[in-house]
């Protein structure tokens, strides 16, 4: 097996060596390129432009849907946000209930002890 593997490497070495070297060089060059502040500026301006185009696209689509008397993305998002707020409040109420329930055994214990005391008197 080892002999086969060595044989494989030897037979394809003349092809792979230059291509791997070219890949290594390209990797270094590209990593150098993306590390430059100018590349960063290019990237951020592209992101800003994409964001602006996205916003314009959303606004137009929502306008069309609204004029058709249909719920648009913004309406559905707003509904989902309200649902989330309601769930938040429910979660907080649930935590309070659980907290009160955790206190119950000791309180009920005290109450039954008091009852016992009253009976004994």
């Amino acid at each position, binding site marked *: 097996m080892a002999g086969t593997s060595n044989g494989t490497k030897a037979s394809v070495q003349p092809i792979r060596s230059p291509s791997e070297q070219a890949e290594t060089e390209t990797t270094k060059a590209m990593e150098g390129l993306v590390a430059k502040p100018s590349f960063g500026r290019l990237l*951020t301006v592209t992101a*800003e432009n994409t964001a602006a185009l*996205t916003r314009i696209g959303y606004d137009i689509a929502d306008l069309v849907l609204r004029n058709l008397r249909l719920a648009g993305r913004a309406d559905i998002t707003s509904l989902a946000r309200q649902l989330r707020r309601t769930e938040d409040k429910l979660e907080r109420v649930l935590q309070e209930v659980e907290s009160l329930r955790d206190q119950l055994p000791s309180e009920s214990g005290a109450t039954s002890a008091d009852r016992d005391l009253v009976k004994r008197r």
Partner: protein
Amino acid sequence: MSVIERIRSAPSDALELANVLLTTDDAVVGATPREVIWTHGNTTLYRYRSAERCHAVPILLVFALINRPEIFDLRPGGSLVEFLLAEGFDVFLVDWGVPGEENAEMGLEEYVCDELHWAVRETLRASGAAELSLMGWCIGATLCAMYAGLDRGGESTSVRNLVLMTMPIDGRGSRYATWVGDEGFDVDGVAEAHRVIPGAGVDFANKLLKPVSNFWTTYRRVAQGISDGTFKRESYQPMAKWVADNPPFPGRAWAQWIRLMYRDDALARGHVRLRGRRVDLARIDQNLLIVTAAGDHIAPREGTMPIFDLVSSEDVTHFDRPGGHIGLIAGSAAVGEIWPDLAAWLGERSGR
């Protein structure tokens, strides 16, 4: 195999390569049985029960906001969750879910003060334990550090052990800072327009850090492996599927993250406030394990090191290992190298 034979096998190799790439989405990730303990909004808390539980303190795993947490449970035989269960730990995992536009207003305070805080609470309730081990990775580790450093008005946390893996706390030296650190970049405008930053955009930016490696070398190696007969489909496909699964980043949290991580040293300087409560890393007094990767280009080691001068923990351990940001913990070598050390460190500190 001669060059002639290699040329002869090229069509079948090409077919195999196409098959590997086309069926990557069919790979099974996150196969360990689990149960849902708690949900809130998009957040879900899962529990993995150990049949051989021997440690009293459960582990809560927290991953980043930009990828799915299935990396903790990538594939059978290559799953950190599976490993920890076999070591006798009760394991919980917080999954941030896939945020939609309705979550655009979610900031770091929602993640730290609500979701993580409540996940800790529910973990303790479900396990019956008084304390837990919090294990965060990447942004998840930063969220854990923020949680541990949050001003609680003198009230102590329930975190006994804190494990922070490849955690950025000062990203100003990273390549991201070259890109987004400039004040001229309108981070709020982009966040507001997109509402949630598309996962594909975040993934593209991450891949641009090493463009040739990510867009070419990976696939060239797969093709070469197929040709040489050394390719392991069961290792490649789950990881490739996980890498390509990028949830959106809520716009507000993204903008906050860029500011605190790449524009100023807010976290290390104690300038971060969540709902008016100061995050001071000096409050971290838990048993602390910091894991850094020498070859980490996403969260370079230099960006983690300041934490050692900030925390007040008496029990501090540092694993500095060769490897990359993800490969260190989820790579095929991790099972024999870092996982046993992680489990041993936690095991020593997870008694009653």
